[in-house]
């Protein structure tokens, strides 16, 4: 069995770390502006313009909170379910290969799962430079997907199953260039009632050969 791993990338962790000083500075700036506005109201009375500075800081706080929430979401989602263990029966997957995915995930707390969605997708990632900015864009194409029915899970219960999937014969192998890449991913989304969805992706290395 070949254990699959999530694709490399800092992503949300870096965003979360960046969001902490951003939000703190935005809060500090807005609080200072609010104190200034209060003293101005005491001296000169209320005008609409006294609120301008404190209100200016609010969108920055909202952006900071949004980044914090986005960064912390996987951690909150992971409070109910453990990281899944995903493996495939092939040590080397070729274009056109069929393989069996074994999935196992333990529930840390009671959870009402509405459904689990698995998608086999090919992701194009293109990075380009425009002036001093570097932009990365992604495009996902779903090759196959299936749903696992929802049910209630108690603490310690395990969601486990095996399922056969196939890389299409007219598909592409994994490609890694300096600015462009093509990757095959197994995307998992566990929809827990009243709780953020648990999402995870696992990379499947597809060799440049056709399965016989």
């Amino acid at each position, binding site marked *: 069995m070949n254990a699959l791993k999530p694709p490399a990338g800092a992503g949300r962790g870096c965003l979360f770390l960046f969001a902490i000083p951003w939000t703190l500075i935005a809060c500090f700036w807005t609080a200072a502006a609010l104190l200034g506005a209060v003293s101005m109201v005491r001296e000169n009375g209320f005008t609409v313009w006294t609120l301008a500075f404190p209100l200016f800081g609010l969108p920055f706080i909202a952006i900071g909170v949004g980044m914090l929430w986005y960064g912390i979401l996987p951690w909150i989602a992971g409070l109910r379910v453990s990281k899944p263990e995903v493996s495939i029966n092939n040590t080397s997957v070729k274009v056109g290969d069929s393989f069996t995915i074994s999935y196992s995930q333990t529930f840390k707390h009671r959870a009402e799962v509405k459904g689990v969605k698995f998608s086999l997708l090919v992701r194009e990632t293109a990075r*380009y430079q425009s002036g001093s900015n570097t932009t990365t864009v992604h495009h996902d*194409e779903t090759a196959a997907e299936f749903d696992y029915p929802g049910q209630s899970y108690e603490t310690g219960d395990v969601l486990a199953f095996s399922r056969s999937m196939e890389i299409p014969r007219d598909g592409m192998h994994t*490609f890694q260039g300096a*600015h462009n890449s*093509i990757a095959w991913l197994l995307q998992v989304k566990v929809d827990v009632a009243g709780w953020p969805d648990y999402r995870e992706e696992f990379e499947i290395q597809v060799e*440049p050969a*056709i399965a016989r």
Partner: protein
Amino acid sequence: MTNVDFQWNVQGGEASAGRAARFDPGSTVEGTVTVTPQADLNCNGIKIRLEWHTEGRGDRDRKSVDEMVAFQGVLAGGQPAVFPFRLTLPDQPWSYTGFYINILWEIVADIDLPLAINPKSHFPILLRPRAA
């Protein structure tokens, strides 16, 4: 700008209507390129390269995988000169057409001229195994 006429004759591969010929990964591509300059050309070399590059949204990735120097010296104006070539295709990357990324293979004939823009000609091919 130097005017040069290039004529390609590439053998092998699997031809399909309206598309470039398909070649299997690991195979060889051979043929001839006929070069006819309008005037005498003193060239440092005629290089025939096998290369791929990406097109699409991302910055370009490119790699030359095989190259041969077919000729060095003076090409006579108006006289067709035929240069055979034989290049080996690698296993990857396969030709690909996607949403943001295209991977294109081609054979390039590049006349290296001193202190002038090199006349070039590109012959596109597909590198991909037969799916069925």
